[in-house]
């Protein structure tokens, strides 16, 4: 069957901003015209690199990248105003300054050298066009800008309006965005600067909004603004890019780049044969059982990614309504065994939605230890009927996740619970989660630099409220967290949210697995989660 797929919108790479940046207002990343000129003169030295990817991208539409692989394929050729690095901090890209006085009006200056790869200057007209398209009700987009003034709760323009009142162009390279309420810089960048990628107004201005989704440009986006330019997509085989010689941060050193699509077993084989230089972060997963084999290969070096995503066990709180029962189910699971045996030690145990490497992770929370006796006692206290069968919904596609779910079910049976595992393909499971038609389920939810990216799943306003939770206390905390503008105060609020999760257990993390990153000896440059930000610096030696 199919490779593990995470069709969640992959926010991780598209989002967020450095906390430091919010403090010093654009000083974190500097590129000077001199530097650009130097590297342009050096031009492409040649060589091509190949990145192995297991999940094929489905679209090149920057307004609707509805899976991780698509976002990655798009970000090779389209920059956002700022990009997320592997420390979940922000670096400026198409913008060379993002400033705000009141946390409501954000003044953004575009990079002076930024031009589309056909030579046309990149201006606020492109920004305005793109935002208008995202906000147009007839355009499909999974980018929701509802926090910007002038847009409704769905992030769209109301009928009868044709422009966004929260957007103002000051000159060709400067514009402001005004939000409905004050927001912290991370929140703004997570939802806007790091998320939006742009469409060339000069190419698409005559395309009616109704036919933008199906415009030929989306299949063949040759005019873009990024490190590399699109050459072709050989379906199910590879995406071919060539260096964008006019890239505003300096022409890439490579002349070409490929994202090569293959199965996980083939990925390992091609790493061994040297056909692949590195694996894509999160969408080019190397199977755990091959870790040893890969680390013994002499033509590559391997390491572990600093970024990985917790695999969540979700409770439908309407059916599993007693927090004591949910906590008991968490305590009954021997998570150390999952990490030691299944992940061969390459993982960590946390309680909630965020991994320990996340800036908003509350390190003071001690995950529940494995305690089958305590769990049983807690269940008896809660008056649990041990004859009741718990239906446990597990998605197929990721072997480790399936096996871990089976181990977990065995742990539950060991304390006398009746568990029935039901396996579903991902779309079916998703449908069950969305409609709250399950009792206990497993799902992986990606996070971004802003914690609201994961905690927004737990409010009744979200269409994706998997747990069905509707606790005014939690909702208030999450809303307060979103609207707080002081970083430290936000951390404090999200600590309370995490504390709430620890006590009430609407969800707990089964494990956080470390992802292996491979780099061939002939490839020089940064790989892993930061790879796509640094492609233009990559070099290939023979």
């Amino acid at each position, binding site marked *: 069957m199919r490779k593990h797929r995470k069709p969640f919108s992959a926010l991780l790479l598209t989002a967020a901003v450095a906390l430091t940046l919010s403090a010093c207002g654009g000083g974190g990343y500097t590129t000077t015209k001199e530097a650009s000129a130097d590297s342009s003169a050096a031009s492409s030295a040649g060589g091509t690199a190949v990145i192995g990817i297991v999940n094929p991208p489905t*679209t090149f539409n920057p307004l609707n990248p509805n899976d991780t692989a698509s976002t990655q394929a798009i970000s090779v050729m389209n920059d956002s105003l700022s990009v997320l690095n592997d420390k979940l901090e922000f670096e400026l890209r198409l913008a060379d300054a993002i400033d705000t006085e009141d946390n409501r009006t954000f003044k953004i200056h575009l990079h002076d050298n930024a031009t589309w790869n056909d030579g046309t200057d990149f201006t606020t007209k492109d920004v305005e066009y793109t935002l208008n398209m995202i906000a147009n009700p007839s355009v499909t987009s999974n980018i929701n800008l509802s926090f910007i003034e002038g847009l409704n709760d769905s992030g769209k323009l109301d009928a009868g309006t044709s422009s966004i009142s929260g957007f103002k162009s000051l000159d060709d390279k400067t514009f402001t965005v005004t939000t409905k309420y004050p927001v912290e810089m991370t929140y703004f960048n997570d939802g806007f600067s790091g998320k939006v990628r742009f469409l060339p107004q000069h190419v698409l201005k005559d395309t009616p909004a109704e036919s933008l989704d*199906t415009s030929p440009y989306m299949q063949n986006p040759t005019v873009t603004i990024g490190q590399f330019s699109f050459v072709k997509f*050989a379906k199910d*085989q*590879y995406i071919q890019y060539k260096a964008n010689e006019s890239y505003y941060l300096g022409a890439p050193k490579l002349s070409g780049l490929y994202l090569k699509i293959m199965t996980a077993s083939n990925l390992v084989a091609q790493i061994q044969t040297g056909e692949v230089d590195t694996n894509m972060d999160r969408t080019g997963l190397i199977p755990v059982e091959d870790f040893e084999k890969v680390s013994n290969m002499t033509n590559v070096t391997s390491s572990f990614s600093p970024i990985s995503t917790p695999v969540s066990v979700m409770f439908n709180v309407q059916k599993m309504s007693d927090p004591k029962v949910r906590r008991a189910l968490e305590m009954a699971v021997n998570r150390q065994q999952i990490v030691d045996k299944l992940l061969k030690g390459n993982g960590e145990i946390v309680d909630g939605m965020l991994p320990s490497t996340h800036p908003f992770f509350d390190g003071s929370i001690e995950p529940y230890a494995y305690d089958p006796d305590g769990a049983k006692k807690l269940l008896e206290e809660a008056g649990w009927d041990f004859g009741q069968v718990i239906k446990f919904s597990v998605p197929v596609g990721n072997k480790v996740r399936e096996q871990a779910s089976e181990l977990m079910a065995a742990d539950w049976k060991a304390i006398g619970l009746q568990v029935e595992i039901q396996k579903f393909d991902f779309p079916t499971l998703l449908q069950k989660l969305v409609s709250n038609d399950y009792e206990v389920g497993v799902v992986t939810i990606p996070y971004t630099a802003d914690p609201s990216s994961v905690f927004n799943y737990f409010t009744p306003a979200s269409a994706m409220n998997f747990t069905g939770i509707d606790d005014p206390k939690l909702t208030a905390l999450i809303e307060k967290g979103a609207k707080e503008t002081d970083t430290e105060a936000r951390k404090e609020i999200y600590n309370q949210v995490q504390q709430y999760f620890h006590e009430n257990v609407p969800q707990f993390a089964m494990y956080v697995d470390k992802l292996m990153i491979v780099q061939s000896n002939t490839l020089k440059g940064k790989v892993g989660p930061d790879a796509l930000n640094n492609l233009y610096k990559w070099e290939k030696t023979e």
Partner: protein
Amino acid sequence: MLTYIVRRLLIFVPVLLGITIINFIIVNMAPGNPVDMYIDPNMSPEIIEAKKEALGLNDPLIVQYVKWLGTLLTGDLGYSMSSYAPVAQLVGERIMPTVTLGLAALVLALLIAVPLGILSALKQNTKIDYFVTGLSFIGTSIPNFFLGLALIYIFAVNLGVLPTGGMQQLGGDGGMWDRVRHMILPAIVLATAIAGRKVRYVRASMLDVLKQDYLRTARSKGVHEFWVTNKHALRNALLPVITVVGLEIPILLGGAIITEQIFQWPGIGQLTLQSMMSRDYPTIMALNLIAAIAVLGANLLTDILYSAADPRIKVG
């Protein structure tokens, strides 16, 4: 003959219509829908509803079907609900790879199966016979994915003589030979299973024919044994084989999903899997339609070939 073909083609129409109706119902009965795949906590229920409305997913099933059929009759297969590419383009790009690989596998399989089947029949109950039937058993029972991975390991990773997968080298201007090189391993994997099944058909059929009186007559007239076997016997022995080979064609055209995936062969099988995983209704329907046409077409072709091979059989 011509009226027969025309009549058969006319029967195709109601049959196809029936198939599309059943498929449409089954596809829509599967839980989940294309819009649910837009998963994002910031998606409001309103956007989801609006999107469903725009794609027509809220219409009654019968209305959706009639709309689909209506656009189909104008020659339009619609747009994919996941990539928004025209379905005709998505499918069109994948048909040739699948057809080429399928035909190559079929030819290769017959080149292996027919001589081995004859040999096995001629040497019935000898060590050669046991060896060949044993081989055919292995061919039938070895899983595609295992054979595929094993071949990749041996020929691509260890010996480095053939590529691990894909249809052409990166960049894709390696010419004809490059494509052939990429096709060798997947064709062998597909051919192994087909040949395994066909050897036994050829053998059994040949054994039946070899007992016939007319062969003794031929021999007594002094016809050389080579011609007795390969001309007089083989022609009759191949008749039932034509039928079963005809049945292989739709299987191959439907896309050898596992083989295509292991070798990243950009064919129909891969697309089928992707469109099912994203509940991409228009693409699934188009693929079903093609599979149905392939089955019906292959059946017709089999009947025609049958009458061509055996003058006693008259169609019409």
